[in-house]
């Protein structure tokens, strides 16, 4: 499984050279692996065995059997383990992660260490928050990073019995403010709001939702091209929670204004570039579909007109629009 590696054409000469270089490395590696597996089969849980796994994992961090053996050694090595030992183990995975940030096994091992440290667990997990902040600073969409952040937060919450929702809400807001196309942050925003609402953590819910509407209005006027914010808006218009909070009138007003804004942005783009903004059109459609279901204000021919426009503008997905057209009749 390789990603993003430029193709290289190997000449016979290059290939011969590589094979020669590999030969030695293979011998060293295989001898190490052989010895390590033998140790394992003899239930050897010693410092020496631990060092052997370090050597193997330094060469090949994807060797999950070596990680497994390492964990068994740690579990069985007994009183040799003190705080420094655990710190070193965390350091080891950090060095590994810097070299191989996308290897699942290293992340797993780090989580396992943190779950098994008998001392200062809270301090350790809080340290992880700094680690994951730095990671998401370097790569704001890192999939492992966001997943790990949720793991870290939930562990801190468990240990302190204190919700971090508000703090995290500020964090995702700052991420979105930095880059409005950060879909990972928008996703997390949905999780947090849902969670805060169900745990009754928002004092003035009506006010909160109105601020949220203001926030997304600013967002679509900043960048109406990227789909991230639009997916978030779909959540806002479709999920019952928002409607409940705003009340029927507030909700209708929200939809009406959102529709007008989408139309306005689209008109501006038409004037500016001669092209419709198809996300604006998609949102208008969603709004019209919702309104059709509780009152019949919107004209079907308008709805049809938008779908026919989208078939031309967004031909990759034309069959979806044709499907919606067919549902109309």
């Amino acid at each position, binding site marked *: *499984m*390789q*990603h*993003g*590696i*430029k*193709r*290289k*054409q190997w000449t016979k000469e290059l290939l011969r050279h*590589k*094979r020669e270089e*590999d*030969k030695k*490395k*293979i011998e060293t*590696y*295989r001898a190490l692996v052989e010895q390590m*597996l033998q140790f394992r089969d003899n239930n050897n849980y010693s410092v020496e065995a631990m060092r052997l796994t370090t050597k193997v994992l330094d*060469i*090949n961090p*994807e*060797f*999950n*059997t070596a990680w*497994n053996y390492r*964990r068994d050694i740690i579990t069985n090595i007994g009183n040799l383990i003190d705080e420094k030992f655990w710190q070193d183990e965390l350091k080891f995975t950090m060095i590994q992660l810097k070299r191989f940030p996308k290897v*699942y096994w290293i992340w*797993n091992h780090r*989580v*396992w260490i943190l*779950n098994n440290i008998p001392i200062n667990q809270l301090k350790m997990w809080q340290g992880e928050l700094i680690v994951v902040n730095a990671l998401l600073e370097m790569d704001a*969409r890192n*999939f492992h990073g*966001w*997943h790990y952040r*949720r793991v870290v937060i939930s562990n801190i919450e468990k240990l302190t019995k204190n919700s971090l929702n508000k703090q995290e809400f500020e964090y995702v807001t700052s991420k979105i403010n930095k880059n409005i*196309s950060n*879909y*990972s942050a928008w*996703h*997390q925003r*949905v*999780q947090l709001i849902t969670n805060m609402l169900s745990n009754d953590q928002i004092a003035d819910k009506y006010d909160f939702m109105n601020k949220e509407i203001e926030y997304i209005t600013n967002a679509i006027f900043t960048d109406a091209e*990227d*789909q*991230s914010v639009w*997916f978030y808006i*779909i*959540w806002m218009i*479709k*999920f019952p929670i928002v409607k409940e909070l705003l009340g029927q009138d507030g909700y209708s007003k929200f939809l009406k204004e959102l529709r007008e804004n989408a139309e306005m942005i689209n008109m501006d783009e038409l004037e500016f570039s001669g092209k419709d903004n198809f996300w604006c059109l998609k949102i208008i459609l969603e709004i019209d579909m919702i309104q059709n279901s509780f009152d019949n204000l919107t004209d079907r021919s308008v709805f049809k007109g938008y779908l026919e426009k989208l078939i031309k503008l967004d*031909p*990759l*997905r034309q*069959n*979806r629009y044709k*499907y919606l057209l067919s549902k109309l009749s």
Partner: protein
Amino acid sequence: MVNALLKEKHIKYLKSLDSQKETLEYWLSEHLRLNGIYWGLTALCILDSKETFQREEVIQFVMSCWNNRTGGFGPFPKHDAHMLSTLSGLQILLTYDAINLITEDSEKLDSVVQFIKGNQLPDGSFQGDRFGEVDARFSYNALSALSILGMLSPEVVDPAVEHILKCLNFDGGFGLCPGAESHASMAFTCLGALSIVNKLNLLTPEQIDTIAWWLCERQVPEGGLNGRPSKLPDVCYSFWVVSSLAIIDRLDWIDSDKLANFILESQDEIKGGIADRPGNEVDVFHTVFGLAGLSLIGYDNLVEIDPTYCMTYELTSKIHKYPY
């Protein structure tokens, strides 16, 4: 620019994979060997050239990956068993019509079923092995493996399904666990798992429409598919996204011709094989998922692949379908 499928070159490329023992990469990828063989073999099945690999040799290798202590397959002899490699092992045996090596050996059958069921957690999710990593991929591994063995049961299926449904997000995508961001590969693992146990009917028509919408938005103007919004296209999503759309019967929501072009342009026209995107280094993983994508969209009379199992229909028709 390449605009035809280089079948012969791909067969040659796949054949060459096993003669790489003098490269360092071969040894550093031991942990993926059984998966790699399944990918290569399935690619060959799609190209109607199964006989390219030596059947007896491969079966012998698979059985040498059997883990006697725990049951299940490791990815390489002496490696620990894992859910990922256990499924690959069974898929290869099924492909060679040799699944009886497990199903007719009651001790092995018991211990592999025990290994799989033993990795199910109280909330219905599955861990990859005894160390606790939870991921919807392992739910798929478990249900697919038990299905191949004909050993599914409500005690395993019902909680598993309940957990999978919790991975569905507001946007119509699926995450690796409840609360995780949507990722196209998870759409396949979750929908595939539901399809295996005949539970797609638990999704409402509205949910299906939303799922298909998120999936079809993965196609970018170049024709390829990405795994998440605002990401680059990648050939492997030709399978994850297209199989998902096929499972919910919305295959026509993307432009197949444009997708086919993107996959074809990612071929290596000299040594064969398919890369993640045009100009990049090829590997067996992108080769099989590129070919599987092409097969699903009906390109060039390739052997038809079953989107639920990622094996040819000829093979999956032998699986006894749940509920029994």
